[in-house]
């Protein structure tokens, strides 16, 4: 009995020793900052002063009644929808195409994955130039093919700035979903497709009735990733528009940055960060639970 208990303890210690580095890293870079942010959200600190008096729930009340924050939240939701359609949808289409490639598969996969390895700041600079109203590739192409009427200041118009930056961000992110979905597609038993083909199913019908249902679990994982990544969107926005023009591309993350470093309201920024985290967990948590139960 003691020997069994001793063995179990030893097994546990061995297991913990393997986990310990990751636990330490998560604790240092996730848990501790999270707790500090939570602590800050109940204080009034400008990021400079030695004093940070406690203000109770004032920051939360101020935040949730701040029209600017609510507008940023709305923009972030729109950003997620665009991300879903372009990045996830685009990744799915590319995964389908890549799964059918016979020759040069590795080359095509490498090229298709390339945008994902580019730094977000570089992506912003590249697309900032593409969207340049006078010398950018997009307007130059439109002008060259006789579509001058569509030539536009894409990042300067509040109506087009958010979708334009979302396109840039989706271009950078689609490969992530493509890889996951491609792995899922390749794990589908080919016999199922063959059976469908024997029954006379077209390509579209096979995708709709075989591929997508078979990718159910993979798609739900991808949706969660897309949701979390969309709510983390900052890098591409900041490097293309810095949240402008005006507040047209001010996502919640940009709002947090501006409050912390430009407005000197670090506590307000911490509060917004906590609220953002709660929103993400509140959506992702139940979604994952239902997925685990097979209800999705």
């Amino acid at each position: 009995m003691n020997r069994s208990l001793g063995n179990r303890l030893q097994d546990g210690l061995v297991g913990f020793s393997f986990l310990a580095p990751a636990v330490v890293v998560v604790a240092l870079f996730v848990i501790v900052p999270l707790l500090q942010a939570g602590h800050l959200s109940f204080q009034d600190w400008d990021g400079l002063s030695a004093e940070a008096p406690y203000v109770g729930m004032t920051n939360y009340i101020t935040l949730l009644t701040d029209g600017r924050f609510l507008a940023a939240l709305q923009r972030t939701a729109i950003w997620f929808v665009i991300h879903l359609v372009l990045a996830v949808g685009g990744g799915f289409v590319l995964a389908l195409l890549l799964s059918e490639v016979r020759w040069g598969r590795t080359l095509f996969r490498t090229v298709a994955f390339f945008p994902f390895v580019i730094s977000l700041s570089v992506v912003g600079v590249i697309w900032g130039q593409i969207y340049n109203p006078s010398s950018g590739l997009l307007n130059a192409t439109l002008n060259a093919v006789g579509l001058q009427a569509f030539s536009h200041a894409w990042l300067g118009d509040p109506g087009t700035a958010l979708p334009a930056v979302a396109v840039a961000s989706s271009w950078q992110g689609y490969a992530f979903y493509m890889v996951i979905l491609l792995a899922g597609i390749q794990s589908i038993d080919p016999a199922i497709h063959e059976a469908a083909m024997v029954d006379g199913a077209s390509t579209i019908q096979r995708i709709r009735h075989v591929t997508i249902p078979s990718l159910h679990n993979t798609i739900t994982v991808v949706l969660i990733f897309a949701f979390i990544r969309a709510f983390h969107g900052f890098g591409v926005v900041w490097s293309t528009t810095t949240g402008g023009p005006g507040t047209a591309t001010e996502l919640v993350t940009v709002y947090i940055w501006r409050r912390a470093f430009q407005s000197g309201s670090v506590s307000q920024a911490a509060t917004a960060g906590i609220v953002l985290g709660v929103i993400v967990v509140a959506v992702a948590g139940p979604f994952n639970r239902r997925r685990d139960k097979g209800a999705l």
Partner: protein
Amino acid sequence: MVIAVLMAACGSSNDEGEATTTTESTSTETTTLMESTTSQAPDGDVVLRIAGDGYAHTAAAVEAFEASHPGITVEYAEGNLNFEEGVPQALLQSGQGPDILILNAGPGRAGELAKAGLTADLSELYDDLDLASVYPETLMNQLEAQYGGQISEMVEVYSAFQIYYNKALFDDAGLDEPESWEALVEACQSLADSGVEPMTLGTRSGFAAGWLGGVLLASSVSIDEMTEIIYEEASFEQPDVIRGFEMLEELVTGPCIDGPTAAAIDYNQSFASFYNNQAAMVAGNEFVLIGAVDSDVDISQFGSFAIPPRDGGGDVVYSGGMGKSWVLNAESTEREAALAWLAWVTTDEYLNIVVDAGSYIPAARLPDGAELAPSLARTGEILANEELGYNPSNYFSGAGTQAWYEALQSLVIGEITPAEAAAAVQQALESN
């Protein structure tokens, strides 16, 4: 040294400097404060850590300082300490920050660090070195007006903002330098008719919007009035301020500036457009010409002027003032060496290095015979002979500056009115 937080910001922040051409020269003086520094090195080797912008002269300056201060080794970490990105704050609060930082000057940035007790009081240094005789009187007045007379920054860069224009494009359109507001607007129309972008502006960079905004306010608001606004004795919602915003609105709704294009590009792209003869005018300080030199663009093709006032406005006034300042970390462990550096940067030896490199116009009085680079000559004349209006970005604190930039950006894209712009800035100033 924890310099991991240093990161390059998107372009330079407001840099303002002033040069004078008086005949007296400064000399390194040994004072009661400096007895153990300038004339002799502290015992043992000392490592003096400095962080901030690197310039063409930085390496030579470090070398010269080390040569004249045996026993002190300078570690200069180059990077843009952008206050709006929280970099100097993080460095100073880390407890392991550099001894000296060079960053955006003025009460809105360096001043905020001083208010928080993160940087040291340099008033005694100013007295001991008689820096009041080294710096322009207006600059000293502004420094002494802050925080009950406590001076916590050593202004390094002093500059002036104006409108730079392409002489050839003006000649092609049959234009002279506009001497009135109406002439400026008419010039824009003529340039637009000739197929040239009249004025380029990159408001994606908020501070670039601030440059033009500052130039417009300088011509619409008197210096005395602006002083009251800056030091919170008057509201920003003044009719003269609103007129300045109306002038920007007129530039945007008229032929001068294409709002959506201005909002879509940053200052780098607008400068490129100006250098490539695609745009005839751009607002900025002498770094417009310094950047042109760095890009191998012939600066003799460019001229400059201040925005003429609109009807009811005051005299032609250039905006500008303090740009970058040295500050001393309040927790520096090498205080003597740091003070030695701060004293040395006002000496002829250092100033000659800066002038020879053509990096910028130092705030301190130039040595005898020092000749500014061609790219800086015109600004040097302005700083020597003209009274400067304020560049609000350097004087407003965080929320105020942010509101100032956003008001200008929103005005450029037609989202708000001039009155709403002034109100938004005033609200931010009050909340801060």
